[in-house]
Every structure is written in C-alpha cells, then in structure tokens.
C-alpha cells in the first residue's frame, strides 16, 4: 500500500496561474519618496500620509522578530516592489461592466464570480488584485441598510472621518515590525462599517489575489461594528507559483462596541512553495480585535493551509465587561512549510470569557507550532478561559510544538488548558483499508473528524470547501 499512497501524487496547486495583464508598477525599494508616491497614487488625505511616514520612521528603528519557530533567509526589503496595480482604461470605475474582463476572468477561475448572474446569492465580495481593489459586489444593496462595504482606498475618499477615528486604534502603527511596515506601505484592503442595531443581511468577504512576481502584498482591513450590530466576514487568499519567496504582511483591525458581534473567518491558501521548499509566500500577519463595549463578541476562525511560512496570532482584547473572545483554528502544514500561529486573549474587563480551539495538522517535513497567550489582568474579576490545543502528525518526519503562555493576575480568574497529540500513519490507514476504505477516504474522514469543532464555526458555504481543501493538500502525504 505504501507504494499506492506514494503514487497518489500531491495535487498540483490549482491557483498557481499568472494573469497576463499590463500593470502600473513602481520601482523596487523602500524610502520616504516611495511612501509619498503610494499615498499620492491613492489621492489620500494628509493625515494618511502622516500616519504612513510616522510608521516608516518607527519601522526603521525596529528589528525583525526572531522568537518564532521559523527559519528563513534574510529578507531584502529594498528588493521588493511595494505597489503594483493592473492598468485599467478608466481611473474611476462606475460599475462592474467597466472592469477589465481579464480580471473578471481571473477571479472567475478562482471560483469567485463577480458578475451579477453567477454570484453567490448571499455573499458580498471585495476582490483585491495585487495592490488594489478591483470590484466590490452588492455595495448598493448593503448601503440600503447603512452598511458600508468597500475598499479601504475608497473609504479614505468617501468616509475619511471613520477611517481616521479607527485606523491604528487596535493595532498601533508601530505595534510590531511587520505591522509597522504595513502601516507605512499598505495599498488596499477592505473597510466594513455596520451601523448601530444593524444585523448585516449577508456574509461579507474579501478575496486577496497576488499576481505579479516580485510584489509584496500589504493589505489593511478595518471592521467596525457599532452597538447592537452583527457581521460575519470571510477572507480567502491565493497566489501564483513563483520560485522566489514573496512577502505578505497584512494588518486586520476589528472594533466591536456594546453588544456587537464580529465573526471573522479566513481560508488561507497562499502558494506554499514546492515539495522542496522553493518559493511560496511569507505570510506575516497581525490581526487583532478589540471588544470595546460591554457584551461585545469577536470570533476568529481560521483555516490556514498555504504559505511557505505563517506567522500569525489573531487576538482579542477584551476591554468591555462580559465581552467574549473566540479563536478556532486549523493550521495545516505539509512538505517544507512552517507555521507559528496561535492567538492572544487579553482579559481586561470583568467576567470576560475566551475560548481557544486550535488544531494543528502536520505532514511531510513541516514544522507546526501553536503559540498562545492568555492574560488575565488585575481588574478582570471572574475572567475565564478554556484552551484546547490538539496536534495531528501525519507520517514520521513532521514536527508539532505547543507554546502556551498563561499569565493570571487576578485570583478569581479561571484558566483551563488541554492538549493532545494523535497520528495518521500506515497502521491507521491499514485499519481503514482492511474494511474496504481507500487511503484518500480514510485521511479525509480522520481529518474531518479532527477539525469538526473548527469547521462547525465556518459559514456553511465555506465549511465544505475547507474540508475538501484539506484533503487535497494531504494527498500523498502518508507512506
């Protein structure tokens, strides 16, 4: 059987194609002029340029973090292109019909339909290609409920006061090395604003596509949920297969006010590099949600399957009393992939609660680390946390680590941590095979079972996709 499983070659990465389109690309390298140029290209208000320059000056004084359990050669920040946008005939597009058909086709090929007829009925999409947003669907329909869903560039033009108020309020410009870099050069991303008392009538989603070869993608997403509102947001990501590594350093900020709830889901499938570890995306991302109001709730669900290196800790700062933070994660690594991912739950308000469910699946020669912090501040009376970190090893050469950090400064706090390790090896597959179940079906059953608690948190349409995606990624990994 070993031979059979081995011959089930890894499915080629389905999204590795390159779109041939003329691009407006600025020269490589980073300095204040480049930042001014980006800001100018986007016709940004003055405060934005100030924000960028402040961040840049801070970044220059900072050093790259070395504490994650990942290894990579030094990044030459002067050899990256910080802005690349597909050339479109018109500067300002009034409708989808004016978008270059090549771009529409690209997203079509990725399974994201932007055209009116074939759209997912209940999902609004913002499609981002390299450094710019090319289209946002259902904008008008959402506007009827007062929901703002557009690219952050557009938000800077149309709603500068909102952006100014919240941008950098959760992840300050100089929060960390990669967040500072992002603040200096970010080019686009999504902006969501849910007014008081509104339950967003459809799922919102952003699809990130890197196309050009030497470009870094630095997107910035900001979601604000006013009191008593609700929104569910999903992001997806893919990139072509290039031999060289590409940097993706994003920042996501969420703000939830009294009784508001934000559900943020990610299906990350950036190009992971080939089986020998050549190429792939460096996914260095800062994601943080602020439960500012009482009874606010922020829930992160992530399915991380791609990227050569993932460095990412979607976190919740629980300021409001009774606020709730959740983190549900499946991180899969295969071949030479490295992931150092987890969460931070910072309990500040009284009776705040957090739940962490982390599932690491580790195949090939990959390294998969969970790193999580649970911190209960002195004033967080009655705070509670439950953490569960499970690892599944596939084959004999993969490595799984768990680094839980727990800091409790209030005696009434209650923190629970559970962890387990299981394995899919030749014996498990043989047991299934002996009952007539093929290795593919066996792996998919075991993985689905392992990830059930996390997949249950995903919006329906995406749970099925995520399940399939994991099975595809693991074909040929046992044997």
């Amino acid at each position, binding site marked *: 059987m070993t031979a059979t499983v081995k011959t089930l070659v890894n499915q080629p990465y389905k999204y590795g194609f390159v779109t041939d389109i003329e691009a407006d690309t600025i020269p490589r390298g980073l300095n204040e002029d480049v930042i001014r140029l980006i800001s100018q290209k986007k016709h940004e208000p003055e405060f934005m340029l100030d924000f960028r320059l402040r961040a840049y000056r801070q970044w220059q004084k900072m050093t790259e973090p070395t504490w994650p359990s990942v290894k990579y050669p030094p990044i030459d920040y002067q050899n990256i292109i910080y802005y690349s946008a597909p050339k479109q005939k018109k500067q300002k597009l009034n409708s989808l019909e004016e978008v270059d058909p090549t771009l529409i086709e690209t997203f079509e090929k990725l399974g994201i339909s932007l055209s009116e007829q074939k759209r997912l009925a209940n999902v609004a999409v913002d499609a981002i290609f390299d450094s710019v947003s090319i289209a946002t669907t259902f904008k008008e329909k959402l506007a009827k409920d007062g929901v703002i869903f557009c690219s952050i560039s557009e938000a800077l033009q149309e709603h500068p006061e909102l952006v100014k108020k919240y941008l950098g309020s959760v992840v300050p410009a100089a929060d960390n090395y990669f967040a500072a870099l992002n603040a200096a050069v970010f080019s686009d991303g999504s902006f969501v604003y849910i007014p008081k008392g509104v339950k967003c009538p459809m799922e919102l989603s952003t699809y990130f596509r890197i196309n050009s070869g030497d470009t870094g993608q630095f997107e910035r997403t900001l979601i604000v949920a006013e009191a008593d509102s609700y929104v569910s947001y999903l992001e997806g990501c893919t990139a072509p297969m290039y031999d060289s590594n590409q940097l993706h350093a994003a920042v996501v900020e969420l703000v939830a006010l009294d009784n508001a709830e934000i559900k943020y889901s990610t299906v990350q499938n950036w190009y992971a590099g080939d089986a020998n570890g050549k190429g792939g995306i460096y996914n260095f991302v800062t994601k943080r949600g602020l439960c500012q109001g009482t009874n606010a709730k922020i829930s992160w669900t992530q399915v991380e399957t791609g990227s050569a290196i993932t460095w990412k800790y979607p976190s919740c700062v629980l300021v409001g009393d009774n606020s709730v933070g959740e983190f549900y994660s499946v991180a899969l690594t295969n071949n030479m992939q490295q992931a150092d991912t987890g969460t931070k739950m910072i309990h500040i308000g009284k009776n705040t609660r957090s739940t962490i469910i982390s599932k690491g699946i580790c195949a090939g020669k990959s390294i998969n680390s969970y790193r999580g912090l649970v911190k209960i501040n002195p004033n967080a009376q009655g705070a509670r946390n439950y953490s569960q970190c499970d690892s599944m090893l596939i084959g004999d050469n993969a490595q799984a680590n768990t680094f839980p950090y727990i800091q409790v400064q209030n005696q009434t706090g209650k923190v629970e941590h559970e962890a387990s390790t299981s394995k899919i090896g030749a014996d498990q597959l043989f*047991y299934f095979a002996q009952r007539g179940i093929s290795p593919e079906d066996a792996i998919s059953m075991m993985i689905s079972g392992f990830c059930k608690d996390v997949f249950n948190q995903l919006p329906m349409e995406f749970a099925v996709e995520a399940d399939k995606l994991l099975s595809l990624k693991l074909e040929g990994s046992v044997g």
Partner: protein
Amino acid sequence: MILENSGIVLSVKDLTATVDNTPILKGVNLEVRAGEIHAIMGPNGSGKSTLSKVLAGHPAYQVTGGEVIFQGQNLLEMEPEARARAGVFLAFQYPLEIPGVSNLDFLRVAYNSRRKSQGLEELDAFDFDDLIEQKLDVVKMNPTFLSRSLNEGFSGGEKKRNEILQMALLEPKLAILDETDSGLDIDALKIVANGVNQLANAENGTILITHYQRLLEYIIPDYVHVMAHGQILMCGGKDLALELEARGYDWIVQDAVVGV
C-alpha cells in the same frame, strides 16, 4: 463443518515474507474450503500474526515468494482495500482507536465501499440504521457505541466485540481472527465466540489464530495447524488442540528442527 466437494476459498502455497528484510514466513502452505474453520496455534514469534497481516496486505510486510489464491484470484496482486472488498476480513488483535471518526460513520462507509465494488447501490443513512441495529444483536452491543468515536476509550472486550460487529456487517468470505480471545473475560469470550459461530456458514471460511485452547472450547475447529519458525509444521483435527494444551509445543518444534 467439512463439506464434500466444497469450493476452495483460500489456497496458500510456499508463502514466504519478510519484515525489514528479516524472514518471518518461510514457506507456509494452507488450504481453506468453504464451510471450514481452521485454527492456527503456535508459540510466540512463530509467524501466526504475520501470516494474517500478509494475507490482508499490511504494507510493512514484503512477500518474497509463493502464491495466495483467494476464490480464484491472485490475492497478492490486490490492494488491501480491494482484498477487503472482495471478502477478506481481519479481526485485529489490537484494534486502533480513531478519535473524531464515529463508529457509525466508519461502519457505513466500510459497508458502502463494499457495496459499491459489487455494483450495488449505496445504502442511505436510514436504511443503514435499520441494518446495523440487527447486527448489534450478534454481539449484544449497546447502540450507544455507534455514536462514539471508533474504539476510542473502549475496553479491551468492547474493542473485540466491535471487530465482530464489523465482521457481521461485512459478511466476509474469509474471516481471519487474530488472537481475538486475548484479553477477554469469560463472558466476553462467550459473546465473541457465539458471534463467530453465528457468522460461520457453508459459504465462507474462518481462520482462528490463537495461543490457547480455551477459545476452541467455544468455537469448534475442523482443523488445527501448528505453526512455528514461519511454517505450518503439523495439521490435525480438533483433538490436536487438546494434545497441545497438555504437552505444549516443544515436541513438535524440536522434531521439526531435528528434521531440518
């Protein structure tokens, strides 16, 4: 039962196999006809369990010679899942615990993959529930076991009963029970033996691999084989088991060594 002119279910000729280049099976010969129950006994390390795994196609074992014909087909050329679908069933000595996969889902997928290979329509969840309920009776199992993860947290006896439940469901042509009696108390042993007896019929063959005569008080074999040093050294009727119980294996094993 020994039947006149019954068909050959399994024919093993001069089978040799290695694990990590160490020879374990050194020329095994065995023929099982429909309706027959064969017991294979022998000391530890004689190659009994290896024989069962080689027949089922475990990837850790390399077949280095000989042939195995199962119902006219060359078994050694078939993938393990194809062997299972064709009707070879191995009840494991140590059934694995599979967290996250419910017993019921496992049973249904196994059953349907067999049906599919026979060109039959797959059973939907409702029809399958009806079917599995009847099968639970064979091993007197509580339906709550179905919703639990496969073998996870099951006692030794429960795991073995679960194996027989799978066997009852899949209705194999050839059932190989590897030390199914080990670790069972007397009540569980009776239940398991009773299940095996219900499932044995004129159409299928059964191989019991065991250390002890105890199991053979409840499942009466038609033939008893003694295996040692990777070969079957002696064959006899059910009385041979009693003799082994009284005399041990040494007299056979030593004779064989002298004979070589």
